[in-house]
């Protein structure tokens, strides 16, 4: 087996996995071998604050009091404000850019354009062993590649002055012909052979299948739109640069920034203690951050740069448009005999983003014949990027809608059809699942929803003028993993600190890491404080791909166990210890006390032991890397995607699973669709904190309501402008769109998947939701809309 830290990367496997999450990977799963022996403890009854308990959010108080400081809320002296200017044509050259009026405007400190001549280096992309999600660097030439590309930055004493002055920049363009839609006859699809899948003879099997369904399924441009716009503060101190950047990954941001600036990475610090939502859009810093760094360097002052909300639609990309042709062939009793799939997504004209539309097509069901291909099609757009469950989301949308069509054609219950085509093992990798509680999810979801009372005929259920539709779909998300680090500090005043550079993007990392430490150290969880989101803290991988909780829970657990061992050794061996006469094997750590195991009393509190042995603190740094891992290897996990191991790395195929059940009401006269209730059962393995996991699950489901019914980036066919680049016209779900939601956990600890037995949570919540809603709309109306979002005009016109 190849060492995961010295991998001989197989190009095909590498590309394949990168397609899945933009991650390169190693060829082996050995780094996961360090599963802590104590992991079985999770099966015991859950105490307050322990792993598995529904503790309230540790960062709750600061967030409800408004005292949590987000990136651009750093109060720095002499702050200057940068405002960006974006292109208004989709393709061509800047012939002239007139900044005279801008420079003369009150308060203006500087204007930078491509004529300023500042070099910003091209960063290394994920596939190249870097952390960047786009190669584009602004102001390096006069080329316009998309409408809304950054072409200038104006810096002034105040935000108001910079905003006014930016509006005074005038640009003369030499437009060239733009390629705006992937279906344009001039477009050139690029086949992604690395994620092609073929077995059996899919075409022949489909041709001779007794029952067939076939359709084209499309999704529009969708945007992450976290509530906190993409914004940062850059400040230099000599040749050292600090960037307060809302980041899902400070290590990756540091890598990209150091490459942009040509700066030794040790001189860059990135700070991101709180992030106002990311959903994939804050994995790597986007080009405006480089301009903040340049402006701050040139002016010798801290510079704050925020994209306006409209600029966030073109200053970075969301999910690309996707298109899938999917054909299912089956026997008359519902056994799949063939899946034929062909998909594409759009990408930037000179950059690459892959949204693998077949990641679930090849995974969910057993079929003797399958053929699946995916292409990317360059158009004049900002490079698209990752949005919650990239790949799995559109892939599941098409597959699970098609399965509903097949169930309807066969006259078979949709759940029964899925069980009929149950895959006993990973159909593509041909290895067993680690755990797959999907049957349990179907059963629990159906029971809670009341699925057995469904009349399968479309338009058969109604209340007054409202047609009632019940739909369901399955969902899945892979388990990504890699080694991680953590530090625990015990203080003589009784405080316990947990340190990690990993970021809490609202997922609950602050809370669950405190739980992990408290459980092992036997201290009240309220005494544990967790510090996150700073490159000065122990290295951590990206909070993306639903991997970070599992990685850091493993690392903190390992560090906590080592801390306990050191404490007990100290108690038994230090000449000043009150327990020095005890043997270390006879000591236990319980309720914050070290005591002989056979004596319920006579213990010494951790803080008292430290005082007795005259230690102010005990600091323990541990990790889940294989023994002998080098600094370079540890840095790789922190600064690149190269250590991310795919779902199949442990010899089993590790995925989280879900079953979504939805009731919609459709107004017969107006075609308005309302989601009335939602029930979902999730197999996310061991759930570290059910209260916070539920928040992530329902968050995904609600984003799924938006995807199914509301969200669509509208592109002007004349000039490629995003017409609805704001939060009123790009509609996301609001409170009144959202019904009661019931979530059920059916997972069991999966120790083959991760050290503590957790699987994916956050990304999983959205997968399958759009299909379940679409299937419910069909059940209500008899109309099958295969183009998201399902809007009134499509329903009325269908």
């Amino acid at each position, binding site marked *: 087996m190849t060492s995961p830290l010295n991998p001989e990367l197989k190009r095909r496997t590498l590309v394949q996995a990168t397609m899945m999450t933009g991650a390169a990977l190693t060829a082996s799963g050995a780094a996961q071998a360090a599963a802590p022996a104590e992991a079985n403890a999770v099966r015991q009854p859950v105490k307050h604050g322990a792993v598995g308990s529904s503790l309230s959010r540790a960062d*709750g108080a600061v967030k409800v009091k408004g005292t949590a400081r987000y990136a651009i809320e750093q109060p720095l002296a002499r702050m200057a404000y940068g405002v960006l200017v974006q292109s208004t044509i989709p393709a061509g050259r800047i012939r002239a850019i007139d900044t005279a009026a801008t420079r003369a405007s009150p308060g203006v400190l500087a204007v930078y354009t491509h004529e300023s001549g500042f070099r910003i280096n091209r960063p290394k992309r994920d596939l190249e062993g870097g952390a960047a999600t786009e190669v584009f660097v602004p102001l390096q030439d006069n080329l316009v590649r998309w409408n809304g590309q950054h072409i200038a930055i104006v810096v002034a004493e105040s935000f108001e002055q910079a905003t006014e002055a930016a509006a005074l920049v005038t640009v003369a363009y030499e437009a060239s012909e733009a390629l705006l839609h992937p279906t344009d006859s001039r477009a050139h699809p690029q086949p992604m052979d690395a994620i092609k899948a073929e077995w059996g003879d899919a075409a022949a099997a489909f041709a001779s299948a007794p029952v067939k369904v076939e359709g084209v399924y499309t999704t529009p441009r969708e945007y992450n739109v976290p509530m906190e716009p993409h914004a940062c503060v850059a400040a230099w101190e000599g040749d050292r640069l600090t960037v307060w950047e809302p980041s899902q990954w400070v290590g990756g941001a540091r890598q990209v920034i150091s490459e942009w600036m040509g700066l030794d990475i040790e001189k860059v610090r990135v700070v991101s203690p709180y992030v106002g939502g990311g959903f994939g859009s804050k994995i790597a810093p986007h080009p405006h951050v480089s301009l903040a760094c340049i402006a701050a360097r040139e002016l010798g002052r801290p510079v704050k740069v*925020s994209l306006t909300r409209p600029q966030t639609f073109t200053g970075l990309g969301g999910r690309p448009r996707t298109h899938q042709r999917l054909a299912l062939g089956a026997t008359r009793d519902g056994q799949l005999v063939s899946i034929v799939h062909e998909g594409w997504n759009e990408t930037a004209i000179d950059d690459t983003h892959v949204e693998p539309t077949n990641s679930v097509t090849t995974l969910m069901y057993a079929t003797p014949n399958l053929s699946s291909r995916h292409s990317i099609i360059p158009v004049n757009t900002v490079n698209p990027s990752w949005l919650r469950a990239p790949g799995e989301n559109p892939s599941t949308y098409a597959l699970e809608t098609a399965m509903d069509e097949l169930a309807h054609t066969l006259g078979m219950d949709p759940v029964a059809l899925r069980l009929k085509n149950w895959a006993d093992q990973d159909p593509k990798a041909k290895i067993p699942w680690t755990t797959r509680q999907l049957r349990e999810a179907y059963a629990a979801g159906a029971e809670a929803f009341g699925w057995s009372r469904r009349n399968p005929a479309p338009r058969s259920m109604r209340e007054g003028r409202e047609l009632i539709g019940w739909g369901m779909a399955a969902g899945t998300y892979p388990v990504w993993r890699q080694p991680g680090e953590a530090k625990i500090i015990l203080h003589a005043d009784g405080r316990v600190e947990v340190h990690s550079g990993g970021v809490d993007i609202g997922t609950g990392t602050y809370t669950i890491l405190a739980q992990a430490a408290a459980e092992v150290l036997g201290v009240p969880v309220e005494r544990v404080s967790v510090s996150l989101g700073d490159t000065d803290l122990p290295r951590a991988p990206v909070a993306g791909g639903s991997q970070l909780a599992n990685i850091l829970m493993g690392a903190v657990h390992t560090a906590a166990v080592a801390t306990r061992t050191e404490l007990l050794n100290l108690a038994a061996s230090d000449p000043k210890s009150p327990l020095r006469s005890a043997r270390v094997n006879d000591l236990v750590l319980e309720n914050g006390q070290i005591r002989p195991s056979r004596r319920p009393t006579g213990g010494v509190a951790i803080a008292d032991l430290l005082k007795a042995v005259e230690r102010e603190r005990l600091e323990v740094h541990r990790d889940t890397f294989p023994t002998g891992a080098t600094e370079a290897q540890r840095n790789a996990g922190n600064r690149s995607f190269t250590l991310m191991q795919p779902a199949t790395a442990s010899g089993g195929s590790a995925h989280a699973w879900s079953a979504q059940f939805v009731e919609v009401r459709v107004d017969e006269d107006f075609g308005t669709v309302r989601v009335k209730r939602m029930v979902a059962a999730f197999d996310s393995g061991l759930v570290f904190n059910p209260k916070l996991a539920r928040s992530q699950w*329902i968050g995904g489901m609600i984003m799924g309501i938006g995807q199914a019914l509301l969200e669509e980036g509208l592109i002007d066919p004349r000039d490629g402008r995003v017409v609805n680049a704001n939060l009123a016209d790009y509609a996301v779900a*609001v409170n009144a769109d959202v019904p009661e939601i019931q979530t059920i956990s059916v997972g069991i600890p999966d120790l083959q998947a991760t050290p503590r037995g957790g699987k994916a949570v956050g990304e999983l919540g959205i997968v399958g939701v759009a299909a379940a809603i679409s299937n419910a709309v069909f059940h209500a109306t008899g109309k099958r809309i295969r183009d998201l979002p399902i809007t009134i005009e499509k329903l009325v016109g269908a």
Partner: protein
Amino acid sequence: MATQRAVRLRINGRDHDLTLDSRVTLLDALREYAGLPGSKKGCDQGQCGACTVHVGGQRVLGCLTLAMQAEGREITTIEGLAAPDGTLHAVQAAFVEHDAFQCGYCTPGQIMSAVACIHEGHAGSDDEIREYMSGNICRCGAYPHIVAAVRDAAARLGKGTSL
């Protein structure tokens, strides 16, 4: 052309003497000049509700209000909601208890809206809460928990509670 002017803003019971460009919004006055960044900028064009504060006892959008317009009026922000001893307002406590947020960025606006929603007498049912809380977008999707928190806090506070 913008003019600079001295302005006294009464925020959370305290006077702040600021010199502001006449174009500065109440939101930017709070965040950039008064050292109170608890109110959030999500869109800066009145579409998301993250900047919701109370002016003269009513919820307003800080990004669509010029700072000058709030002169001489009582401004309450998220930083002024808890009791002086730090005890959380019932709505703040209910948001923590019901996990009515994830990333926390929309939360100050949600809470300020929720306090007003209860005060306005619009927390009578879950559907009413959903409707009157729909000016505040939460992209993390905490809505069901926000409804639960508002319902719970409204019950604790009783109708017509003062702001």
